[in-house]
């Protein structure tokens, strides 16, 4: 009986993952590529600077959302702290890509935090494109665009709630 339940859960998981186009192997790949790109210390600060500058270059209006956390100057202490928080959140999501139950819990948590802020879909798209440029710059050849694009969709959908 227990095996049946496990199998059913597994089947459901596979169905969900393959429907979204971010399958188990892609999830593992994204996890390992992320841990290299995420790096640490000053490298991580530079990595996050690059991502946020790429976002604001595409959607300058988005800066207004970050006024309270020093968004006018991406190098300000408040904004560095904020951008590290965001990346820490993304780090949790990516780390949990292969633990569906906990991933769902974290996505709901982040969805609640973002709901009140009414973030337009194209800002998420700008985030995806920014990652799409900064990640390969950080990782060189060992970067799988499709896997990242597919798995980012899972994350963005979860935070947006649609």
């Amino acid at each position, binding site marked *: 009986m227990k095996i049946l339940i496990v199998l059913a859960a597994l089947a459901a998981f596979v169905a969900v993952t393959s429907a979204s186009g971010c399958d188990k192997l892609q999830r*593992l790949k994204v*996890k*390992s590529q992320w*841990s290299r790109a995420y790096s*640490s*210390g*000053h490298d*991580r*600060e530079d990595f996050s600077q690059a991502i946020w500058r790429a976002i604001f270059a595409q959607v300058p209006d988005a800066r207004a959302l970050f006024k309270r956390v*020093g968004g006018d100057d991406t190098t300000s*202490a*408040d904004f*560095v*702290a*904020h951008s*590290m*928080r965001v990346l*820490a*959140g993304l*780090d*949790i999501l990516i*780390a*949990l890509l292969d*633990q*569906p*139950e*906990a*991933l*769902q*819990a*974290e996505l709901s*948590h982040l969805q609640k935090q973002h709901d009140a802020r009414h973030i337009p879909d194209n800002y998420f798209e700008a985030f995806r494109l920014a990652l799409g440029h900064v990640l390969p710059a950080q990782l060189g050849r060992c970067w799988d665009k499709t896997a990242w694009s597919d798995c980012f969709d899972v994350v963005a959908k979860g935070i947006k709630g649609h």
Partner: protein
Amino acid sequence: MLRLVVLLVLAAFCAAEEGRSHCCSAEDRNIVQKQWKVLWKDTESSKVKAGFARLIMLKLIEAKPEAKALFTNVDIDHPLGGTFTAHCLRIINALDMAINLLDNQDALDSALDHLAEQHHARAGVKKEYFKAFADIMSDALPRLLDDYNYMSWRSCFKGLYAKITSKLDA
């Protein structure tokens, strides 16, 4: 001449810096960051991290049973469940963020200030819980990390805890 000016400025800077950070020196910060990084090397490290944080949190509510109620909405009754696992990762990632910002004092202050706000907003969180958390953590970390410099960690974490708890009433 220029060299002398540079040296003097450097000396003045060090003297000014000394007052606030001699307890967690540049070398202390280096050591903490280097020793902490070991935890994050593996792709599967999220399971280790969540497991470690889970143990710390369970030990915390063992030591301070009245604190358990604070974690009801993250489902502490099912510590292996997804909700609590995600929460454990949030805690350990906040620590990770602080450690990685150790050598950017201003950004670190801003990040800790934000954490202080988040804990201030939770009625019932007390300084003594953080004291207990810190004690459990400093017991546990050397068991997890092969290289652990007690003095460096202690001197750097003292400041972190002080700032996170700075907005708590009790």
